[in-house]
């Protein structure tokens, strides 16, 4: 009898636990609905306000919520600390919290974000590329356009010059509110150049002169170029192809590997292969991570580093005894770093740069449709794209602001000043063609770069494979 009773109790407990799961969910839903109602009312109130501060107030007035945010302000990104500070300030101001899932910008992050959208686990707010990388989730209607947001929040991004906000290539609609622009250029460790007896490259340095410099640096026992071709070949891919073209035709996508643009791409990749064969990349370039080769550059073992404007902050942090405390900057060490144009070849002038406003803040449809989060998400983006914040993030790069606050250059460190000086001599700023050449199209030449440079894969075949993938996706 006791055992039967025990069995009955067990069965009842099992049933209760199952029912319990359901009832918890039901209660949760009811609570969420109730919270949603009250937050919806608060959100509605916010729409009647007309200033950014009003939106922030609405976000404050509502029950504090947690929003998930993914950005690329992480790792060596120069704005990683600015972002952390800004998030903390917004949290203090509104009472809301941010569950931050930011990570270094690489192919893995891009894949993660696209996959998150496809599996319904996307962040509420996203700082991401506005090019073809976003096509999948834009086409799926998973982000809200700036125009749609303005119907409810008329002041949303009204401090931006709309003409400078890029539209999505998927549907020509604007979704992402830009913060800071970017440029890609060549950082130089002048200490290594001095040791090798090489002059600092200038706006007139040609490709052949660059090769001569690399040889001298190699002969002096240093690594000429810090690059992890098996990990981040992006910048070399972009510029070596750009070197075969001009700013006018750089954004063309080839129809096949043997047409004019395709041939230019193949020749660009052949230049990378040539550099590899000459031994100008680190010995472990195929197995190293980007962090490792960056360390070899900052440690004075490599001379050149081709990277983006975000690396300025990474280099500066590296010259601080406490990476999070700017007052610990070793200015003498930082003075050993400079930045210049990527040596030109053919019709591309050395001063033609790759850059633009390629990223911005998206609000996802999931957050927009959630009355509890809508106002908070809008408030967050408005806070992060305010004039003051954009000026802080942009520093020496372009912005889309209507009225940029005056930059106090006296606060700039020596590398930032050098970057400003370089930017003043730029003859053109062209977007990156890889932003139009979708993620999986690049697999054969990005992930395949080690096989290309070692001759295990034919360059034309790799380029054609990427083009085929691109064409299949159109």
């Amino acid at each position, binding site marked *: 009898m006791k055992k039967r009773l025990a*069995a009955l109790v067990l069965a009842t407990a099992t049933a209760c636990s199952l029912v319990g799961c359901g009832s918890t969910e039901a209660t949760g839903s009811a609570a969420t609905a109730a919270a949603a109602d009250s937050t919806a009312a608060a959100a509605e109130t916010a729409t009647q306000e007309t200033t950014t501060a009003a939106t922030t107030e609405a976000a404050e007035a509502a029950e504090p919520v947690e929003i998930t945010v993914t950005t690329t302000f992480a790792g060596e990104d120069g704005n990683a600390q600015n972002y952390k500070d800004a998030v903390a300030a917004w949290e203090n101001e509104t009472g809301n919290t941010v569950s931050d899932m930011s990570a270094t910008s690489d192919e*893995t992050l891009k*894949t993660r974000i696209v*996959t998150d959208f496809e599996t319904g686990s996307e962040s509420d707010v996203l700082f991401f590329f506005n090019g073809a990388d976003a096509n999948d989730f834009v086409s*799926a209607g998973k982000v809200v356009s700036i125009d749609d947001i303005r119907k409810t929040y008329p002041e949303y991004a009204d401090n931006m010059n709309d003409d400078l906000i890029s539209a999505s290539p998927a549907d020509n609609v604007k979704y992402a509110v830009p913060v800071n622009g970017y440029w890609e250029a060549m950082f130089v460790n002048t200490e290594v150049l001095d040791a090798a007896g090489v002059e600092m490259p200038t706006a007139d340095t040609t490709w052949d002169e660059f090769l001569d410099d690399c040889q001298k640096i190699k002969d002096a026992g240093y690594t000429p170029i810090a690059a992890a071709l098996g990990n981040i070949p992006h910048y070399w891919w972009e510029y070596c192809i750009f070197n075969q073209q001009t700013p006018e035709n750089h954004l063309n996508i080839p129809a096949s590997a043997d047409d004019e643009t395709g041939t230019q791409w193949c020749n660009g990749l052949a230049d990378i292969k040539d550099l590899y064969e000459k031994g100008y990349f680190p010995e*472990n370039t*195929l*197995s190293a991570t980007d962090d*490792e080769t960056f360390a070899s550059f900052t440690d004075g073992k490599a001379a050149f580093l081709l990277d983006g404007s975000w690396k300025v902050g990474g280099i500066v942090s590296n010259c601080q005894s406490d990476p999070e405390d700017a007052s610990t900057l070793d200015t003498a060490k930082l003075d050993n770093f400079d930045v210049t144009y990527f040596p030109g070849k053919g019709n591309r002038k050395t001063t033609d740069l790759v850059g633009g406003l390629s990223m911005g803040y998206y609000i996802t449809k999931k957050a927009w449709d959630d009355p509890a989060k809508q106002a908070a998400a809008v408030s967050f983006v408005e806070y992060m794209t305010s004039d003051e914040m954009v000026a802080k993030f942009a520093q020496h790069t372009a912005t889309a602001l209507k009225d940029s606050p005056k930059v106090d250059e006296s606060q700039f460190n020596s590398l930032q000043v050098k970057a400003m000086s370089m930017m003043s001599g730029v003859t053109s700023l062209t977007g990156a063609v890889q932003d139009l050449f979708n*993620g999986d199209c690049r697999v054969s030449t990005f992930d395949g770069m080690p096989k290309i440079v070692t001759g295990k894969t034919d360059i034309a075949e790799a380029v054609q494979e990427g083009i085929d993938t691109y064409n299949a996706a159109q």
Partner: protein
Amino acid sequence: MSNIYRKRKYAVIFLIPALLFMTVYLYYPFFVNIVDSFQSIRTLGAGSNNWNDPWYSNYVELIHDEVVWTSLKNTGIMIIATLVGQVGIALLLALMVDNIHKGVQFFRTVYFFPIVISATALGLLFNLVFLYDKGMLNQLLEIFGKTFLTDWKDESHALATLMIPVVWQYVGFYFVIIETGLNNVPDELYESAKIDGATALQRIRYISVPMIHNVMVTCITLGVTGALKVFDLPWTMFPKGMPLDETFLTGTYMYYQTMEAKNVDYGSTLAVLIVVLGVILAQITKRVFKEREDI
């Protein structure tokens, strides 16, 4: 005696939830995965565009894909490394610990400890050990007079660099299983053998090893099937089969195709290959290393 134990319907009632769970989260997805392997799916979660033409094209590609053969070869090496390195070393350690009287608990804890550390954390740790510049190993060799750096992740070293941490991590797991098996061997057998003049090695050869035969079969089966699934540590140390696709295992290649190359249908095909391989190898293991019922 209560008839609750005689009526099997109660047992069935309690088995149904687990069966439902397995059906929903294992068998149904596996069936869908097989269907997916015949379709064209570019992105995860986006659904299929259409059937491949021909529908079995992924399986043809599977045969012609050099990286598949590399990953199969590496997985084969991983199985051998598992059997020799993990199970073999675990057996040796367990036999030694079984022959000491003091500190048994200490050694159990020490050998088992790596299991409780996340494989990803271990991967990051070993990344520092094998780092090219300022890595622990290269620094140690420098102390002993080596004048140049070795890239432990290059083509010629990568596979060994990958296998060592994986083997090291799981030795403790098999050690605990085998040690438990040895503890179950009756002391009387050893005492009798000792009285009969058997040496320590003879006691191990003729008593310990035969008595833990079934335990060893279990370990070998777990080792073989486990080697097919190993993923996190290799991916942390050698993402994307770095360098030159030389370190891909079947699991990491499947992940790469699905998540990185966004070739989801081909990733599904690789998943089918892994399951088929797993079943075949488990059967072979079962037949080669038969369990004995007389122990």
